[in-house]
């Protein structure tokens, strides 16, 4: 039961984007297309799960004084792995995500989970926690990029979904559209969260 | 003579209905109710008790503190009650009710100062204190306190305030026209106490008769300055700014920069105290607005306002508001039984229409433009409204003089002064 909660909380109740307002930069930057959003989400899931697991395994061996640098190096290693993997195998995607892949390293979600969870909890729970948070993050990216791609291009994953009559709202593909739609989605989400916790 | 002014301010319709009405004596009322607290400062205690017989001018209340001012009986009669009565400023307050006897007898203690022209400074000051003289412009700050600046702050300029910038009011105007000589003598007494290098008598340009009549009586080392007709020209700091272009430091007093400002009505009262030995038990009140015959009246303190209204032919049909003071800073009264006190310069009857609703501020900044102290009234109102108390001082709340210019011009009908007063209250409580 407990492990189930550890996993599920990241999806909604403690969703890193919607509830904790973390990892804003990639959330805004790469959500013009759903495909980018998914790719970024998966990259974060990989880095988060891998580094959480590794750190949890060695949590007793890492001295307190060098915790931060150790974490950073471990995270950075996995980030570079993902970056090169994408560059080699998905050059098109890698180009679109640009510098935001290396920037995963400073994504506060990842460092936050290490500090708050995996440096204190056993491997299995750390893995679940990271997976939950990662999927929660991906979920947020999917929601935002779906809205932006449909309104901004009239397509979803590149396929036209709204037909000829629709005039794309170019703004949704631009920075203002990213900020505005995330702001509005957060506002709507606040309304629902308040209702459900009442 | 040049027209002098200060930045900001408003110019509502002057409505000086009684500018040419001579001061008349109001017939003595049957009963007076004299509040013990008629000044700013420490409270007074009654010196009479129920059943006591009093003469006109008998001391009935005093305090021991330096910043206090005694009150006197304004009629000859019997104390019938000491209790809680209507008070024009505080709503309710301790007052002495006296039933008048037919025959008027002056208290034997009333004696003029001997050889007032050559009296000692200390004697004059003591007389002013003992006769209960306070600022007659409405502030009611004990005059002897204002005339006793600490030695570290020498006074170089005396300003006599005859601006009377509030619309409707004419009591100072009439006093200057009719009792110019007495006022000038009062000014000379103040000069003697303070020994200023310069003395200015400031009068708004809309009072030509007062200007010319005083002009003839001027003595050496006095100068009349004509100031622009604009509200609140009569505010101390505004008057100083207009005449001397000097700024009273924020949170400070005029005497910090060597200036004392006195109202013309106060000068007249000082004259009466010194030359006639008369305690402050009557004053001139303008009864105006929606009354049938607006007049300037000499009224015994403690007279209920209903007597004044009746003497002026009663209220017009539809009047629903009676204000003590002018329309800009006066205080609306609950009852016509409220007595006239030392600071009551006018009684104004108005037909007040339905309250307009308060709309959101549209930042038109009219209040900023008219604010005579150059603060941001609308921001202060919002700060109070949204309870961001920590911002109050940053926005100079305490500098507000509550003149009401901002509310007068506000298109959204925001009671800014009310918010500011609430903010001042809060700030005082937080400091404690």
């Amino acid at each position, binding site marked *: 039961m407990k492990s189930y909660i550890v996993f599920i909380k990241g999806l909604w109740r403690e969703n890193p984007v919607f509830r904790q*307002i973390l990892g804003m930069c990639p959330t805004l930057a790469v959500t013009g297309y759903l495909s980018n959003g998914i790719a970024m989400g998966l990259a974060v899931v990989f880095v988060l799960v891998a580094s959480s697991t590794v750190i949890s395994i060695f949590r007793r061996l890492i001295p307190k004084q060098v915790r931060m640098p150790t974490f950073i190096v471990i995270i950075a290693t996995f980030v570079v792995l993902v970056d090169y993997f994408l560059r080699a195998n998905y050059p098109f995607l890698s180009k679109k995500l640009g510098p935001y892949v290396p920037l995963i390293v400073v994504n506060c979600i990842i460092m936050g989970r290490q500090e708050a969870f995996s440096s204190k909890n056993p491997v299995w729970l750390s893995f679940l926690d990271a997976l939950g948070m990662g999927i929660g993050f991906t979920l947020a990216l999917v929601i935002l990029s779906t809205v932006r791609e449909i309104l901004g291009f009239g397509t979803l994953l590149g396929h036209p979904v709204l037909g000829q009559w629709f005039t794309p709202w170019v703004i949704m593909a631009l920075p203002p559209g990213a900020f505005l739609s995330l702001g509005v989605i957060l506002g709507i989400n606040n309304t629902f969260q308040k209702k459900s916790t009442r | 003579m040049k027209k002098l002014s200060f930045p900001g301010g408003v110019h509502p319709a002057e409505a000086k209905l009684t500018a040419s009405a001579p001061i008349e004596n109001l017939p003595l009322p049957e009963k007076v109710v004299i509040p013990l607290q008629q000044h700013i400062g420490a409270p007074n205690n009654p010196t009479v008790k129920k059943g006591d017989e009093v003469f006109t001018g008998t001391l009935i209340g005093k305090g021991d503190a330096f910043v206090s001012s005694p009150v006197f009986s304004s009629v000859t009669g019997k104390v019938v009650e000491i209790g809680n009565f209507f008070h024009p400023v505080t709503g309710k307050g301790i007052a002495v009710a006296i039933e008048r006897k037919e025959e008027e007898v002056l208290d034997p203690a009333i004696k003029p100062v001997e050889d007032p022209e050559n009296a000692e400074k200390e004697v004059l000051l003591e007389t002013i204190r003992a006769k209960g003289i306070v600022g007659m412009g409405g502030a009611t700050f004990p005059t002897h306190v204002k005339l006793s600046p600490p030695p570290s702050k020498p006074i170089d300029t005396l300003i006599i305030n005859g601006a009377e910038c509030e619309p409707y009011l004419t009591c100072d105007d009439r006093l200057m026209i009719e009792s110019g000589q007495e006022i000038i003598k009062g000014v000379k007494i103040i000069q003697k106490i303070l020994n200023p290098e310069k003395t200015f008598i400031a009068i708004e340009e809309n009072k030509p008769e007062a200007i010319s009549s005083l002009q003839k009586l001027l003595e050496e080392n006095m100068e009349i300055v004509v100031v622009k007709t604009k509200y609140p020209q009569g505010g101390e700091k505004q008057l100083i700014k207009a005449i001397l272009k000097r700024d009273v430091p924020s949170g400070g007093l005029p005497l910090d920069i060597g200036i004392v400002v006195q109202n013309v009505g106060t000068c007249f009262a000082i004259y009466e105290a010194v030359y006639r030995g008369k305690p402050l038990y009557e004053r001139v009140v303008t009864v105006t607005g929606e009354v049938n015959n607006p007049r300037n009246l000499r009224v015994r303190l403690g007279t209920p306002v209903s007597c004044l209204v009746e003497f002026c032919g009663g209220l017009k049909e539809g009047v629903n508001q009676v204000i003590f003071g002018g329309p800009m800073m006066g205080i609306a009264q609950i009852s016509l039984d409220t007595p006239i006190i030392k600071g009551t310069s006018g009684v104004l009857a108005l037909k007040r229409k339905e309250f307009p609703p308060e709309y959101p501020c549209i930042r038109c900044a009219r209040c900023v433009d008219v604010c005579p102290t150059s603060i941001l009234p609308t921001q202060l109102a919002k700060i109070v409204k949204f309870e961001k108390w920590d911002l109050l001082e940053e926005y100079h709340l305490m500098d507000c003089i509550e003149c009401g210019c901002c509310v007068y011009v506000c298109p959204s009908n925001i009671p800014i002064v009310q918010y500011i007063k609430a903010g001042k209250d809060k700030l005082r409580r937080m400091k404690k």
Partner: protein
Amino acid sequence: MDFLLIFLAALTTQNIVFAYFLGICPYLGVSRKLDTALGMGMAVTFVMTITALFSWPIFYLILIPRNLPYLELPVFILVIASLVQFLEMYFRKAIPHLYSALGIYLPLITTNCAILGVALFMVLKKYDFIHSLFYTFSTGLGFSLALLIMAGIREDLDLAPVPKNLKGAPLALIIAGLLALAFMGFSGLVKGG
């Protein structure tokens, strides 16, 4: 001219916040008050410039000659983390008044992705050393500008009946969007970069 273009672009069209979405967390977090925004802006500008000062030589004089470009990321982030730590210690001891002005913001900076981002961009844009310094400095100023505007607006909105559900991050994001919309007016004004 080169420098002017870099400078103007960093403030407007290529603004690190409005165009690249970097440093959003501190942008949302530290923009409630003008004073703190000013402090944070100055601290970020300072650290960004210092980062370029150190990471440019490390990258071009150590990593590239040894064919170790893949160490760019771990090295940069370690440089930033240790720089911030070192600066904090140094300020506290040597320049206390600067510490009281900037010091409290320094720990927040490690997690500011704008710093790492600007170091990565500096390499991507192939700037030489002087241009890199100027670029990072200008970007810091651009960040400060965005922060100050936002703080000014949010201070105003402290005195507004903002809908409850929008308070905080949602409204800040919407304002950022509107600012980005207004800043579109600059586009084309500064070409290239």
